[in-house]
């Protein structure tokens, strides 16, 4: 739009193109001139890491689909064919399977970062809710993908999850029957799950575009939670954020590569190398690690429908955080009481994950119930009340002050003041 640091096409052909489709200008204002708070820490690189993971999953997925056969009779064998016969098939599959886990590692860091630094608060509510929608789509995609190898865990995972949906009153049985395409999980089921597994990542990509769009309207949050007030608070996206994001992605991919090359099956279950068998359920049926906290919540309730409602609520409640949190201070760095509750919440989520992998008996059930109660209390009691009673710590006057101290001697950032004050340029 108007004014600052905008893209000015130089060559005649660039001018000709820009006046017909201003996409180069859009990219320039979003990823080159875009003002980035100068105090961002490495938690802010996980957006770029997630983008890289999404691309990795889409590319490896498309290649796997060239060799995979989505039928109950052949799916298992076609996955073994990929592993044994297809050139580098083992690499593609291990990248895809471990990539799903890495995707969730990154998204959990990203979500907890948003919760700690109050990135969900005004004016970023829509940005944040789009993130929750992406998370929901990721969970659906991961579940559908996990059923495709058609091993024992795939089959029984599909059975358990579709039975969860059957608990919905009135329409549950119909939904279940439409998902199964039969009277039980079978060939029609794997066929449609494959179709949907291929579709959903592109829906994720669409919502990611909206998520990034919303981000560039409101601008990024930062560790102080204070908005950019002058050009001295910001640096341009390129080269500062670009090079930092690239570095973080490379480091994350080293971590990713460790799993692919040294522990490719550690995050999966050995039972999934046994072909699906409808007459035997594996002795210990647990979901992938990234679903374990929700699985623990499901099992904490002795009632089927109640458990299902609570499990879905545990995800949906995230979307209400912007209105449940009554504090006007964004960053938990300046919220001495809330910060302690935040870490308690993180601990409870980790413990719930651990409990989700344990058998549903004795002390584990009691512990699951206590942790489930705290999980919801954090949103419904702690977030509204702490904001009302807490006295926040003194905040720096600006982002620059938080970096250089209260009396800055120098504050050159190369960012024109006008650019930083109005980050919402290319809506």
């Amino acid at each position, binding site marked *: 739009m108007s004014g600052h640091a905008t893209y000015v096409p130089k060559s005649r052909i660039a001018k000709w193109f820009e006046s017909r489709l201003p996409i180069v200008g859009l990219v320039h204002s979003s990823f080159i001139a875009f003002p980035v708070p100068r105090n961002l820490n490495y938690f802010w690189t996980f957006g770029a890491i997630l983008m890289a993971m999404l691309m990795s999953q889409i590319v490896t997925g498309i290649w796997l689909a060239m060799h995979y056969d989505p039928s109950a009779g052949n799916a298992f064998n076609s996955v073994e064919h990929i592993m044994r016969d297809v050139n580098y098939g083992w690499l593609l599959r291990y990248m895809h399977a471990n990539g799903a886990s890495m995707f969730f590692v990154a998204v959990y860091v990203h979500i907890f970062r948003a919760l700690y630094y109050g990135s969900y608060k005004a004016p970023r509510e829509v940005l944040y809710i789009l993130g929750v929608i992406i998370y929901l789509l990721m969970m659906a995609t991961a579940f559908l993908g996990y059923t495709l190898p058609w091993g024992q865990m795939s089959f*029984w995972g599909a*059975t*358990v999850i*579709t*039975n*969860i949906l059957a608990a919905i009153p009135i329409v549950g049985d119909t939904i279940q*029957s*439409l*998902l*199964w*395409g*039969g*009277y*039980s999980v*079978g060939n*029609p089921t794997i066929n*449609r799950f494959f179709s949907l597994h291929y579709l959903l990542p592109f829906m994720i990509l669409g919502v990611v575009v909206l998520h990034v769009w919303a981000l560039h309207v409101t601008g990024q949050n930062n560790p102080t939670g204070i908005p950019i007030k002058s050009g001295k608070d910001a640096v341009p996206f390129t080269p500062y954020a670009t090079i930092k994001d690239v570095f973080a992605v490379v480091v994350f991919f080293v971590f990713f590569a460790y799993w692919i090359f040294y522990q490719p099956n550690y995050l999966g279950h050995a039972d999934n190398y046994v072909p699906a068998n*409808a*007459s*035997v*359920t*594996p*002795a*210990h*049926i647990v979901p992938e690690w990234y679903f374990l906290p929700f699985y623990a919540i499901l*099992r904490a*309730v*002795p*009632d*089927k*429908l109640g*458990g299902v409602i609570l499990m879905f609520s545990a995800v949906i409640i995230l979307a209400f955080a912007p209105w449940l949190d009554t504090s006007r201070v964004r960053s938990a760095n300046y919220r001495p009481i809330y910060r302690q509750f935040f870490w308690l919440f993180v601990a409870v989520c980790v413990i719930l994950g651990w409990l989700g992998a344990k*058998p*549903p*008996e004795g002390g584990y059930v009691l512990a699951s119930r206590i942790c489930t109660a705290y999980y919801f209390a954090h949103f419904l009691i702690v977030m509204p009340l702490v904001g009302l009673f807490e006295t926040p710590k003194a905040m720096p006057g600006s982002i620059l002050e938080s970096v250089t101290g209260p009396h800055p001697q120098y504050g050159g950032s190369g960012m024109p003041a006008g650019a930083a004050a109005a980050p919402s340029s290319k809506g």
Partner: protein
Amino acid sequence: MANTPPTSGPDGSRRDFLFLATGAGLAVAAGALAWPFVASMAPDAEVIAAGAPLEVDLTPIQEGQIVNVFWRGKLIFVRNRSEKEIKESEAVKLSELIDPQPDSARVKEGHAKWLVVYGNCTHLGCVPIGHQGQYEGWSCPCHGSLYDTSGRVRRGPAPTNLPVPPYAFLNDTKIRIGEDGGKAVA
């Protein structure tokens, strides 16, 4: 806005009618278009045809044994119950049950030995393991539901008893699953 059509008077009401009629037409068309997409996901003719009744010969099933059969892709347990198991099942008070049902309602008259039930836990569909748990009926490995020797749920989270599929005795040693008293089940 000199060209805006009048919103009241004879012309205006005609416009309202056109809006409503167009909207209603669009809604009907959208529904009619959506219907085949949704209906195509329902069990197809081939799947339904594969659900023809299934005959099971009971002679090889020993006392205490549980045999797995599949009908319409669903697992069914056929259990030859011992005298002790039958007595225990019949003796249970209905007030002790989560989903109260007398044993006599779960077997065919004169064939109390034979229990025929669907083999998926009514909680989330796992296959319970036979002869296990406190009630020696079935125990579900997934979430710990327990069933007695009548296939009735005795400890949650499963909400209901293992359902009894439609079946009938052709003679003392043969049953047909999927048919209740000579009439095929849709």
